[in-house]
């Protein structure tokens, strides 16, 4: 009997205020829903690249919707409207957790698909339209969605098993490595290309051209850092949590790390909120569609 444990929980769980969850969820939901609707409405955006971006936005929408709904249910439960241990609530909790899992796995898969698509665009531009046809894109998206759904259900049903968690973490690590490799390879190539262009004496002339080349490469470095950095910063804490759960469940240091669980979930949901800024809003066509939609001016003509 551990009465001495009264003052032993030196790492109480850090609680994130529910309004914060709610706000991030609603903002993320609005943004991603806008992206999905824009891509669907504008026929110019029916290309493989935008299909992947739309899929990413759909997964983020699902994640933010589920998280917001869960937050609402917690509010109701705290107020007393819902019973915390009721069977229907537990089933609902299971459903929400599988939807969250599905959206997280789907987000990572969509990132991977976008990176591969960009890679093919740059390195196989000539055959891009033969390699990445719309039919293949839809097949890939269908496979991604079905796989995510099945794996999410399995993950939630068998979450006690270590094997499932190992699979989840391994999937994340492999995706991270591939995304890192693809983007860095593309960046290296863009750098070489830009250097060649700056080397053209006719293109921009002397050192002025070199300065512009440096400026553009700097912006490329910044873009890549933001993209990859946001992915790593938002997703790694949660997966480290899972790793520590498996590796050192008894260690007090690990326990203190695990007490920050809700913060890590907030990070993941906020990544869903900043994703549109990183991926979707970079496209001028999509921004144009947004403006037309939000201003409600002749968007009907596009559909």
């Amino acid at each position, binding site marked *: 009997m551990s009465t001495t444990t009264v003052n032993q929980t030196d790492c109480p769980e850090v609680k994130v205020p529910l309004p914060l969850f709610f706000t991030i969820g609603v903002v993320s939901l609005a943004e991603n829903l806008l992206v999905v609707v824009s891509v669907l409405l504008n026929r110019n955006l029916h290309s493989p690249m935008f299909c992947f971006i739309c899929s990413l936005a759909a997964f983020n929408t699902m994640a933010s919707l589920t998280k917001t709904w869960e937050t609402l249910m917690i509010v109701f439960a705290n107020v007393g409207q819902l019973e915390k241990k009721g069977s229907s609530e537990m089933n609902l909790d299971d459903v929400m957790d599988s939807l969250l899992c599905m959206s997280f796995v789907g987000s990572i898969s969509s990132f991977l698909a976008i990176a591969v698509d960009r890679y093919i665009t740059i390195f196989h531009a000539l055959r891009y339209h033969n390699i990445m046809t719309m039919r293949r894109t839809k097949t890939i998206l269908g496979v991604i969605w079905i796989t995510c759904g099945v794996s999410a259900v399995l993950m939630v049903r068998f979450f*006690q098993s270590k094997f499932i968690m190992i699979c989840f973490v391994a999937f994340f690590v492999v995706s991270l490595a591939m995304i890192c490799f693809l983007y860095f390879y593309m960046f290296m190539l863009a750098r070489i290309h830009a250097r060649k262009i700056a080397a053209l004496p006719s293109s921009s002339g002397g050192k002025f051209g070199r300065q512009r080349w440096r400026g553009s490469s700097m912006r490329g470095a910044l873009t890549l850092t933001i993209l990859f950095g946001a992915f790593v910063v938002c997703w790694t804490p949660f997966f480290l949590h899972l790793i520590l759960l498996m590796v050192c*469940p008894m260690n007090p240091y690990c326990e203190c790390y695990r007490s920050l669980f809700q913060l890590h979930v907030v990070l993941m949901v906020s990544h869903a909120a900043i994703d549109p800024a990183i991926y979707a809003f970079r496209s001028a066509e999509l921004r144009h569609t947004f403006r037309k939609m939000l201003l409600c001016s002749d968007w009907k003509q596009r559909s």
Partner: protein
Amino acid sequence: MRNCFRNSQDSDLFNNTERLHIPGDTGSLHQFEMSDFHNRSQTNARRSDYVWQYEYYDDEEPVSFEGLKAHRYSIVIGFWVGLAVFVIFMFFVLTLLTKTGAPHQENPDSAEKRHRPGSCLVDIGSPQDESDKAFSRPLLAESRTYFHFYINEEDQGKQKPEEERDGKHSGARAQRGGRGVGSSGVDEMEEEVEEATGHKPINGLMEESNTDRECAFFSHFNIPNFVNLEHSSTLGDDDLLYEPSAILERQSHSHDAHCDIH
């Protein structure tokens, strides 16, 4: 989100006999239990649950906080510091990579100036209207030449007419679909390069990156220009026409060595 991830997982992993599934996803439930344990005066309302919670506590509390040598949040601090260092390091590596290329521009600049024929310089300097006419014929002629070259060399089991049709179709489709591709596929990195260098296309990229037999005809194929078409719409078609001739000149002089076409 499952607090089971946090709580009962621990008990599951090292104590299979008493698996306590804490439902709901509120940390508040767990928090309440902890404060319950601390303040026994509050247990009256939950007397029936108290024992159960106590057992749960018993399961969880082998984690002892006594005798910690380092700060208890050391893993957290170490992780975040490591992550910040990684991101900053990555940024510096990328910017260093962009800077190391610059000093090498001096010699190639002067060398290429000598090699470059005068017509290319003249063409580039000319206004748009003249360049349209000046470039269109060499563009078509050269592109057709390399087009056929591509067709002849592409030995992936396709027949020639089919290949031609594919090429033409992909060229035509590139025009239509290129808007989508251009606005997104090359967005994040190429957009900066394009803005700064006047939409010099991925032709250069293709030459550098692909295999020898590809690099010859990539540069003459208009898809990369079409890829940039959306961004270059404000500048008109002069980039479209200007670029291939520059690439042509470079091709003839500098890439025969690289491209083992034959």
